[in-house]
């Protein structure tokens, strides 16, 4: 049985003016412990698909199942990290990382210790009583990661988590997130429009194309890259080969783009 199974999902948004079909014919599986990426230009339904997998919206048709059960039926199975950190500005860092536990009435000693440890492991010491705006963008995104991991979700979804950061911070965080997730053997889905990031971090890349959003092609990342950290992978010789392949596919999706 697959860990995550998305079967024949269609989704249409209805508004007063129009009906936009954001997703059509999405079928995919993700194995436990696997890291996959959704790559594609904006507007091809990646965020919509994550919302469906998170159980936040019900697809117009089709199903998403986690370990054989419909998503959204059990709490804390999925962690979702957004493009910006969305730390609550009026809460301290500590209150922010414990938010998930508080919401699910799980503020127990061992869980709290787990969250605090996570914060230290990720390189943030003595920030518990600070407010989010006292931290830099990269630090805030790390806090957001801790907040997401604190509830020990089975599946982690990251929606363009590094796109608002500067390049160096982004490279550092890629390694950090990748190592952290590997250490906890988490299954993860990363949404990105950065080909390099998708290759460096994942085991498999789903390339999406727009109108309506569907899976254009799936790429398997070669074993030698999967074993490396994202930073090392970017310097490996097979990296540029697969980069070229995906780049060409991506070009073929948006041929009308003018430069």
């Amino acid at each position, binding site marked *: 049985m697959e860990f995550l199974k998305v079967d024949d999902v269609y989704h249409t948004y209805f508004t007063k003016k129009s009906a936009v079909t954001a997703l059509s014919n999405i079928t995919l599986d993700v194995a436990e412990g696997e890291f996959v990426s959704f790559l594609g230009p904006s507007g091809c339904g990646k965020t919509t698909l994550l919302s469906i997998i*998170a159980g*936040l919206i019900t697809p117009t048709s089709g199903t998403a199942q986690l370990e054989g059960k419909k998503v959204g039926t059990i*709490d*804390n199975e*999925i*962690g*979702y990290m*957004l493009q*910006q950190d*969305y730390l*609550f*500005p*009026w809460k301290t860092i500590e209150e922010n990382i414990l*938010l*998930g536990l*508080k*919401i*699910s009435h799980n503020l127990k000693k061992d869980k709290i210790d787990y969250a605090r440890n996570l914060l230290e492991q990720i390189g943030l010491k003595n920030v518990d009583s600070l*407010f989010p*705006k006292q931290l830099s963008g990269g630090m805030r995104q790390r806090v957001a990661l801790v907040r997401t991991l604190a*509830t020990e979700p089975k599946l982690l979804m990251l929606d363009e988590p590094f796109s608002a950061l500067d390049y160096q911070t982004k490279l550092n965080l890629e390694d950090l997130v990748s190592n952290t997730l590997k250490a906890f053997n988490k299954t993860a889905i990363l949404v990105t429009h950065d080909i390099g990031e998708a290759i460096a971090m994942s085991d498999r890349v789903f390339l999406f194309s727009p109108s309506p959003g569907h899976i254009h092609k799936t790429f398997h990342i070669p074993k030698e890259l999967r074993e490396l950290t994202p930073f090392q992978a970017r310097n490996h010789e097979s990296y540029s080969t697969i980069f070229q392949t995906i780049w060409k596919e991506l070009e073929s999706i948006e041929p009308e783009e003018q430069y």
Partner: protein
Amino acid sequence: MNPKNNTELLHKEYLRSLNREKIWVRFYQILIFIFVFAGWEIASKLRWIDPLIFSSPSKVWALFIDKIQDGSLLFDLSFTLSETILGFILGTILGTLLAALLWWSPMLSKILDPYLVVLNSMPKVALGPILIVALGPSFTSIVAMGTIISVIITTIVVYTSFRELDPNYIKVLQTFGGTRYQIFKEAILPSSFPVIISTLKVNVGLSWVGVIVGEFLVASKGLGYMIIYGFQVFNFTLVMLSLLVIAVLATIMYQLVELLEKKLIKNN
């Protein structure tokens, strides 16, 4: 001179200039105060203005001492102050509750929308006579005036702020399985504290208007009554005294709200 010393010196110089500015601002504030009251006193003494109508600071002061000693000022003052504070608190709380209700039920908010618009554009003090007929010429109807004048605008402003929260904060809570109540408690309400505080500040002024008008209409005691009575018997010293007392009390209330603001909004 080494650069570190230099920065320190410059910083000291900067602080000194800030301090100097503060002293000058205070100086001019006090100057205006003295100028207005001294001018008033002199103009009245020299009969540039009619002392019967405009009274004078010395007469107001004498009346103030008189009324403190016979306890009548404290009596009127506490009457009006309790009406105002009650009206102010009720207006803010009811307004916020109503806003929460509208947020809770989008359907209700759609239904009530035109009524809110009408009620908001209505001059609330014009409802005074109706309130008095309905509730009787009493403490209750004056408090109702103080409340009604602020409740609708509070509802509208706070509800707008509830809806302005970035939906991604709600999404964060939903991914943790948050209920609607938890979303309200953890995100919607705290995100609106700054707005609620600023409506509090506006409501201080509004409640005073409501209560004073209410007292004009019905009361036989209170600061508003002092104004209307002084006007009728042509005792303008009484009117002036009442106005000055109201100014001081309203300012104190405003300062208390600012204190609350500092307490409530920690992340500033």
